[in-house]
């Protein structure tokens, strides 16, 4: 295939993926009447749309909520995923393989079945409209356990034996010896988990009704679908942009890790 043609196609593709975002960002700075234009430039740049968003909804609070929830979930998934992954990969006990099969099985269950009973559970625990409902159901991920187990299986037994001789118990082995060697898998699990938690909107829509506990995607959804934006397009797009910015920033820095995490995810599946 001719090189120039390849570049042309790739650039065309790039434009298709990038231009809508660029347009969206520029639209949030345009005055309302000019939003319909295709071009990116306007002579009347204004911050009015953003002002409207900040005025109408506590978006800063939602942002903090999202950070808090996603951080807790990610931390917990890594912690418990590594513990259980270690047990499954390096320890022998009765029922180990059954447990592993069970974990595989849960990955096949579509969440559509468990969604409603999980909600009812939240009601019964009194966790509706609380951070517990957002964090606890996401605390352990079968996928995380799988990745850790896979990775841990390749750790040379001598390292572990040496540590045991030194008198370490298993948890100490995990955290002192294995963690330092596990940066790739920790980052992978961390990124996938953080992204999933940050972008999740269906679950918060179901369990959170109080505005002060809403997560960022949830708040932006309600703002866009409900009437609060007063029909102002700029405000809706501004809210969407604010939702996109944090993760794009993280992506810009960790981009290589992101892509590679998703790739390894796919392979392991």
């Amino acid at each position: 295939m001719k090189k120039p043609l390849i570049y042309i196609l790739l650039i065309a593709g790039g434009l298709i993926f990038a231009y809508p975002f660029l347009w969206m960002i520029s639209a949030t700075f345009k005055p309302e009447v000019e939003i319909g234009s295709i071009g990116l430039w306007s002579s009347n740049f204004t911050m009015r749309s953003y002002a409207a968003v900040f005025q109408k909804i506590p978006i800063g609070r939602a942002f903090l909520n999202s950070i808090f929830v996603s951080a807790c979930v990610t931390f917990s998934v890594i912690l418990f995923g590594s513990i259980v992954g270690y047990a499954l990969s390096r320890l022998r006990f009765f029922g180990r393989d059954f447990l592993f099969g069970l974990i595989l099985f849960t990955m096949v269950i579509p969440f559509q079945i468990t969604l409603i009973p999980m909600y009812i559970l939240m009601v019964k625990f009194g966790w509706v409209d609380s951070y517990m409902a957002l964090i606890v159901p996401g605390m352990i991920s079968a996928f995380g356990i799988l990745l850790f187990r896979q990775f841990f299986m390749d750790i040379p037994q001598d390292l572990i034996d040496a540590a045991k001789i030194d008198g370490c118990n298993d948890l100490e082995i995990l955290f002192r010896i294995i963690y330092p060697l596990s940066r790739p898998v920790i980052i992978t699990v961390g990124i996938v988990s953080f992204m999933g938690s940050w972008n999740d909107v269906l679950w918060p829509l179901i369990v959170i009704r109080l505005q002060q506990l809403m997560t960022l995607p949830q708040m932006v959804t309600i703002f866009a679908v409900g009437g609060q934006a007063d029909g102002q397009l700029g405000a809706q797009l501004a809210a969407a942009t604010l939702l996109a910015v944090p993760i794009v920033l993280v992506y810009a820095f960790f981009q290589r890790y992101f892509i590679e995490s998703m790739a390894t995810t796919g392979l392991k599946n």
Partner: protein
Amino acid sequence: MKSAQLKTRGDKTGYLMSLPYVLYFSLFIGFPLLFSFFLVFHKWNIVMPMQWIGLRNFYRLFQDIQFFISIRNTLVFLVIHIPLQITIALLLAILLNQKIKFKGFFRALYFLPVIVSGVVITILWQQLYAYETGLLNLLLTKLGLSKIPWLIDSGWAMPSIAIMATWKNVGLYIVLFLVGLQGIPRYLYEAAEIDGARPVQQFFHITLPALNSTMVLVVILSTIGGFSLFIEPFVMTGGGPMNSTLSAMLYIYNQAFYFGHMGYAATLGFFFAFIILLVVLLQKKFVERKD
């Protein structure tokens, strides 16, 4: 032997370390599954006490035309979305796999929509698809073509959503295909070249078979993702026009959380989950080939 001794000591610790998962499973997977099954035979709207109604939810399900329409819509979505996604992802992956510069840049660019929340994508595309003022129609009119009723015609609405979903997710599959492509040894192509095979033939006889497992993965991931289609119709169309974008998840959500029919929604959920499992198994059977 010393190491055997060291290994068998793991029993108690093994249980302790697995405990978090066992607790989690019982609480958030085991219990919900059982409770879901239990709920199927009841009528409940949370505020009032539960009522046993036997198989009535099933009678209702089989008379529920809207539910079957929602399943049909979801399948329509998949039928458009998956081939489109595979074609574009494969094409771009092959292009990226050539000897060119800036691979990393393009790859990162194509991947961008994947990481951004579906909510952002939906709000953005609502503006692209707007009939009178939307960007796409503006572009079309500038090119002298007529406007397309993207979201207001029942024949166009679901395909429009499928296109948007493809745009969002194709980056991930480009990456997956790239990984698969990079795993194909060069010498296979070189040998074929020597034998006089044309690029098209090389594609069908070397590339595609080698990508088989990736292909299966892509199809299954897309399918499972596609069955959870919710936020796009929720924000953009409310299920219309004429119920053409009412996805199964949206319908179940409405039944449970707008109308308060918990027992019935649980029944729908079960039924839908079975359909998903069925489709995925069928796909695995047909797409996967034993070499």
